[in-house]
């Protein structure tokens, strides 16, 4: 429609070509993005296009000039129609109309008798002129609309490709922060603008610190306004016009997408539509991440509750039995010590001590497991040396391992680990304690460490009976023991603790029978990025 309006305007300005050019200047600005999505509305571009349109008129006239007299005026009209078509093909609607009108005027002026006048001597030439004008306008109009459709199709395809690329990457993003990163990068690249995603917290509120990390300056009140209203807010400050789009999922607001166009640029409606589509996609992805997080949380809570129940049932027996022994032995010593021989008193004392030890070990295991399972991440991690961790664990268990031969094979050039030292020492200690419980004194325990792929493999081997036909994996379950009814104290939490510790560090632990006999426990701990750096040089 607007194109037609402009052609009417230009029709009105036929008398002076100067007016046509001026009127034409505004056309792309008024209709930016709809007339021609491929060409940004710029003043000098419009100017040059209209100048080209006029140049096509001149060129047609120059071509036709030598033919005058040799061919009929009808055929000269064909040259002008061709010119108008070309103009429509290359220059857009406004210039095409200018070319068509200019061509007809030129045909009339230069070639229709009487020449060098706009008068028409023979009425048949009036048909020629009107026909030429109509044909030129229709053809150029058709060409322009075909071009526009092509442009729209290209833009559509571009948008689909952008959406596809972004949704594919969003599907791979692990959490809300990664999703926000992916989206900001895609939106920024697509619109040649700076984009940033502000994430809300669990309660759906926006915080100041969410705004300070991004590459763009964010107006927090505006972002909050967008979030509250659920509609996009445009902020025009000085020359920049940034856009705030709320990302509202099914229930809660997930965040705000902020887009800053490059300096001096504005987002055209086409781009705004694309932006809204992208924002919708992004909101869905964030919603998905949020729901996944909620599901994981509730699953973990259910697991914790189940563990607590098993735990209570299981330890009540293991606590009561030694308590009964302690209480009775204590009362014996206190009430009838005069009747007891020196030797018997000593025996009772040792019994109390031993039972207290067992209870203490059990309690600390239970507490440790509870603590490990309830914490989400590592509280205190630091750069630690594998050799040191192994050495400490061996030292802690020295009293248990007096009869065993311990061989450590730890290469000097191992990278440092970023771990919680106490927990890893506990892991190794539990494995060593297991060895001392289930293998005979005098056998050999080997501790090896090596880099495997992007992690560190820590293996504890023994020469004991191994696991037999039993599935070693079941040992890592809570309250599972190698020999269910035996004199060996413990409730079967040691390996469960090991697994919890390994998982807390992003690693894993597994058990297997050694081909040459005996058991092997392999712990895999991922290496932190930056740990393989040249730490050797630090010691120089």
């Amino acid at each position: 429609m607007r194109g037609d309006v402009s052609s009417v305007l230009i029709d009105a300005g036929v008398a002076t070509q100067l007016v046509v050019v001026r009127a034409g200047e505004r056309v792309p600005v008024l209709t930016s993005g709809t007339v021609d999505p491929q060409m940004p509305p710029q003043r000098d571009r419009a100017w040059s296009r209209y100048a080209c349109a006029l140049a096509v008129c001149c060129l047609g006239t120059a071509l036709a000039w030598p033919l005058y007299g040799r061919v009929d005026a009808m055929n000269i009209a064909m040259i002008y129609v061709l010119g108008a078509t070309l103009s429509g093909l290359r220059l857009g609607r406004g210039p095409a109309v200018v070319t068509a009108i200019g061509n007809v005027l030129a045909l009339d002026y230069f070639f229709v008798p009487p020449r060098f006048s706009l008068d028409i001597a023979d009425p048949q030439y009036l048909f020629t002129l009107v026909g030429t004008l109509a044909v030129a306008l229709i053809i150029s109009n058709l060409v322009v609309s075909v071009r526009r459709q092509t442009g729209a199709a290209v833009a559509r395809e571009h948008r689909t490709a952008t959406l596809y690329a972004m949704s594919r990457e969003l599907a791979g993003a692990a959490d809300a922060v990664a999703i926000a990163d992916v989206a900001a990068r895609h939106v920024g690249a697509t619109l040649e603008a700076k984009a940033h995603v502000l994430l809300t917290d669990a309660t759906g509120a926006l915080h100041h610190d969410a705004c300070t990390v991004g590459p763009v300056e964010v107006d927090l009140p505006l972002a909050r306004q967008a979030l509250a209203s659920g509609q996009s807010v445009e902020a025009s400050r000085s020359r920049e016009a940034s856009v705030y789009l709320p990302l509202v999922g099914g229930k809660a607001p997930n965040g705000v997408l902020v887009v800053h166009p490059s300096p001096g640029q504005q987002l055209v409606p086409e781009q705004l539509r694309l932006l809204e589509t992208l924002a919708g996609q992004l909101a869905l992805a964030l919603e998905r991440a949020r729901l996944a997080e909620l599901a994981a949380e509730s699953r973990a809570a259910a697991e914790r509750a189940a563990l607590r129940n098993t735990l209570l049932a299981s330890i009540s027996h293991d606590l009561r039995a030694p308590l009964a022994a302690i209480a009775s032995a204590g009362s014996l010593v206190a009430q009838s010590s005069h009747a007891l021989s020196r030797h018997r008193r000593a025996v009772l004392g040792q019994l109390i001590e031993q039972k207290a030890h067992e209870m203490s070990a059990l309690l600390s295991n239970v507490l440790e497991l509870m603590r490990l399972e309830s914490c989400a991440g590592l509280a205190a991690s630091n750069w630690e040396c594998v050799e040191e961790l192994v050495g400490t664990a061996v030292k802690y268990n020295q009293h248990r391992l007096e009869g065993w031969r311990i061989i450590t094979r730890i290469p000097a050039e191992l990278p440092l680990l970023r771990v919680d030292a106490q927990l890893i020492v506990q892991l190794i200690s539990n494995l060593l304690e297991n060895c001392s419980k289930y293998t005979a004194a005098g056998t050999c325990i080997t501790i090896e460490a090596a880099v495997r792929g992007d992690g560190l493999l820590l293996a504890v081997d023994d020469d004991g009976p191994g696991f037999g036909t039993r599935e070693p994996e079941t040992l890592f379950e809570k309250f599972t023991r190698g020999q269910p009814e035996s004199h060996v104290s413990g409730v079967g939490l040691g390996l469960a603790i090991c697994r919890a510790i390994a998982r807390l560090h992003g690693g894993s632990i597994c058990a297997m029978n050694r081909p040459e006999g005996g058991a092997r426990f392999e712990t895999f701990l991922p290496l932190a990025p930056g740990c393989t750096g040249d730490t050797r040089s630090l010691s120089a």
Partner: protein
Amino acid sequence: MTRAMHRVLLIEDDPAISEVLSILFETSGFRVAAVDCCERAIRQAQSYRPDLCVVDLGLPDRDGLNFIMQVRTWSPVPIVVLTARANERDRLAAFDAGADDYVLKPFSGPEVLARVRAILRRITRADEPAAVVRLGAVTVDLANRRTHDLHAEETRLTPLEHRLLECLVRHAGRVVTHRQLMREVWGPHQADVRALRVCVGTLRRKLEREPAQPQYLLTEPGVGYRLETCGDSLRAPAAGIISNAG
């Protein structure tokens, strides 16, 4: 013990543990004064003039840290802290406040005695800082910056390793925190615990027979290092256990 009895100030609010520790110390030839709160402890520390203090970090009126800091303003008396295994941060804070050693709860009687005796032995010897330290087969001559193994072959220590060893020798038998080591060896502004780990590793390779099972340069996980020079390294004995529910 033939010399005069050492006086121990015991600051512990749990009466059961206080009772047991008192008996333990008295039967081992110490004189004991037991108090159950920080305020009384500070008064006693001034009037009783103990040779050693044993402090529980969790006291009813004020934190045990408070006591350590107050005492450190006027006295270098050795202080041993009683702490639960989980409270790594408290332990570090205690060392920063000026504690000399710690015993983990639940602890055993012999372990407490061994720690206390080691510290007392050290202060009686502390007047003449050893210039030559024997670590098993290796002899370290700090004054001349030389280290020899059993066959009198010289082992070369880098300047950093030497400074680290020197610092550990100066506090021999006592825990030196990571922070303290980094400050004394690398200077106040270059704190990278990775450098410390690597340096300790290379030092162990030069001094220890089995670096993964060190005899002398011991790790106190999460806290720091301890140089064991006497050879009677502390073991966690299987005998005797004293603990409270907290």
